[in-house]
């Protein structure tokens, strides 16, 4: 077990290294000169720009720049924003809880709803309930989150005035954005839960259990659910990444001051150190979560070998 975990951790190293390299390329192979971009709005002289180039180490050979970039990144020094001049990591860490709060809330909404819907559909396979659930799930993955967000604002905030249309701080502010973010995830989880439950229900031991006259409820919970859970856990793990990326747009729709919003703002302002930092942080978070899911998998599915 420990060996499996260590091995799995080691496979993440080259990926993290790749991500850092991509982030480096992002800033240093850019057509413009970072120093002149930074000073463009202040009307600096050529001398000012040259000085800044030296300060930033832009005149060093590329491999040296890369090496020092990797070292700084690993130490948690993500540089400073070109716009606000604040340390990037500080800016991002201040936003991280807002994003995580949203993603967790969406996940907590999506898991029970998706699982229940999927299983209900599977139990009533090919009935009208099944068709309705499948249609709902298809809608979930097809509806654009930015539009759903606008429509919910239109209905719950503009027309009814029940819920705040933007911002963060408190449960009321979380309902609409979390619901929008959860909608897509519900679609995917429902489909997976349905498929896996349908498969399980076809298995001999379930048919046997039913024929032995076990109560329907007991059969479902004790036998079917337990085996159907494996693919669901996988898909939930994958969903985390999707939710993290989906939160970018949802935060924009609801003006929540999370990682996503700062990422979009900095892309628009071409504040590359912040873009770089936000991308790095999100993908490292994602890699880490995938690791956690893979390891959790071992606990759920006895068939996964530690090799």
């Amino acid at each position: 077990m420990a060996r499996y975990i260590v091995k799995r951790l080691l496979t993440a190293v080259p990926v993290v290294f790749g991500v850092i390299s991509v982030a480096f390329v992002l800033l240093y192979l850019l057509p413009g000169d970072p120093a002149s971009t930074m000073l463009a709005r202040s009307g600096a002289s050529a001398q000012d720009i040259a000085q800044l180039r030296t300060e930033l180490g832009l005149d060093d050979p590329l491999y040296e720049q890369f090496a020092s970039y990797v070292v700084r990144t690993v130490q948690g020094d993500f540089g400073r924003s070109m716009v606000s001049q604040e340390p990037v990591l500080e800016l991002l860490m201040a936003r991280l809880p807002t994003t995580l709060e949203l993603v967790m809330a969406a996940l907590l909404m999506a898991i029970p709803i998706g699982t229940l819907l999927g299983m209900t559909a599977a139990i009533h396979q090919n009935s009208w309930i099944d068709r309705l659930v499948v249609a709902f799930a298809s809608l979930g993955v097809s509806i654009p989150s930015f539009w759903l967000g606008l429509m919910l604002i239109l209905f719950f905030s503009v027309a009814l005035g029940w819920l705040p249309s933007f911002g963060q701080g408190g449960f009321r502010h979380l309902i609409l954005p979390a619901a929008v973010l959860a909608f897509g995830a519900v679609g995917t989880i429902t489909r997976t839960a349905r498929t896996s439950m349908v498969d399980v229900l076809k298995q001999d031991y379930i048919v046997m259990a039913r024929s032995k006259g076990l109560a329907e409820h007991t059969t479902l919970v004790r036998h079917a659910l337990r085996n159907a859970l494996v693919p669901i856990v996988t898909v939930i793990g994958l969903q985390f990444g999707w939710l993290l990326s989906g939160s970018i747009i949802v935060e924009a729709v609801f003006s929540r001051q999370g990682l996503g919003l700062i990422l979009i703002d900095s892309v628009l302002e071409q504040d590359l150190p912040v873009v770089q930092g936000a991308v790095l942080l999100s993908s490292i978070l994602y890699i880490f979560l995938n690791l956690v899911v893979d390891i959790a998998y071992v606990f759920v599915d006895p068939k996964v070998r530690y090799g």
Partner: protein
Amino acid sequence: MLKKPGLAVPLLPYLAVCAILAACGTGQNPVDDGNSIILSSNKPGVRLDPHLDVKWEVLYILSTVYETLVYQDSDGDIVPGLASEWSVSDDGKSYAFTLREQVRFHDGTPFNAEAVKFNIERILSLGPRSLKARSLLPDIKSIEILDEYNIGIDLNEPNGFFLFGLSLPYLSMVSPTAVQTWGDEYHQHQSGTGPFMFEEYLVGDRYTLVRNPNYDWAPEIYNHDGPAHLEKITWHFLAEPSTRAPALLAGDVDIALDLLPTDAQYVMDSPEHTVSIANLTGQPAFWYLNTQLPPTDDIRVRRAILHGADMQVAVKAIKRGFNRVSHGPLASVTPEYASQLEGMYPHDPELAISLLEQAGWLDADGDGIREKDGMPLVVLMSMVNWGQSREFSELLYSQLKAIGIELRIEMMDYGVQVEAGQRGRKNMLFMGGSGHSAFDALKPFFHSENTERGFAWAKYQDPELDRLLDEAVLLTGDVGKRTELYERAQTLIMEQALILPIYDYALLIGVSEKVKGLEWRSVGLVPTFYEMYLETP
């Protein structure tokens, strides 16, 4: 471990409920103790430091934390502030200020001549990092501390706008001790002499101010003295303008600055809210017309664009009647505004077409776009993401197409646009709201010395215009003569069609009914939070 995986499902709704309860417990709205107020506006750009930043938040927020040597009264006259009196020599080159005594910064540092000298030297030493403050200072020869409360400032040349500049919050007095202690982190440890004190600044999110209990040196422009009425001000930054009106109507904020015109009407319909409009002096919104880059190097093309555009209907539709249509490089509420510019370029597509034909631009191939020597009549425009530049650009696209001009619009970040403007890569560039008087709204934007490095993106080279702008600044006493020079400069700018004016800035402020005493000082951007109080119904 695998004995009871079934338990997980019944647990899930329970977990969800826990999460809901937890969320309820944590972040409630800030408690309204009846004496605090919440505002919203755009977010600041660089570090929120009066000497560094150029954004309006310096005027909105920091004007309550800091004070200036002089103030403007409601007529725009200069009145005492931290300087109780001053004198100017006859040649306009020497200023002597007498400072108020017993004034202390929030960190306890005494305010004196030493502090004034420190502040001016700080601004000068910031160089290009100071986006606005440094440009407001004249050409200073020397600063001399006469005694603890008297200071002399000598200039190399007279400057009629020195006192005006000193009245703007960009030239606020900051605590020398705090600056020296915190260096680059000063913006997180601000210390001024104003009625409110810095409490907390979460970059991009909010800024909190608390009342300064020791404040008793209010300038005479205010109705009361002593500490402010309000105990606390929380400033939320809502970068997305469309969220501000909903926040106000939902009661999440008490004052929303810079409402969208389409939302302002909605706020006005609410019985618990009012909308006040602050018309801003200085620079309106306009597009530069580049005089160096074809096809706008031809004055006939520039004039055709001005006649082909109908900004009257554009401003009415996009600004919903809240802003005035602009006619020149100064807003109509600016004292030096030249009203004779109105009617200079009436909307006249026929005239525009004949001007283009005279210039040799004909639509030979019948595709709706004119051409000359096989080249289509294409005008390159840079669009920015503020000032509703997008809506106006797309409307202009339609209007210019009607006279056979193809507008090619490119969205640019401000920093990128500055570079494009300085290098002359675009025919039309959006500008606006960057100056508060004839002094800082004209010379930096039209004098030929500012074409390569500054903001004179029409790139017009004319000694006559330069002379008018240079001489007007030097006049300190003769306001009539100065206004005349500025009127001639404005007329020249419009005769040469260096800009296509769009609208005068008007700040739409949504205010809850319970907020009383809020006014806007004459620059239009400086609120009287010191006088503000809450009336509980």
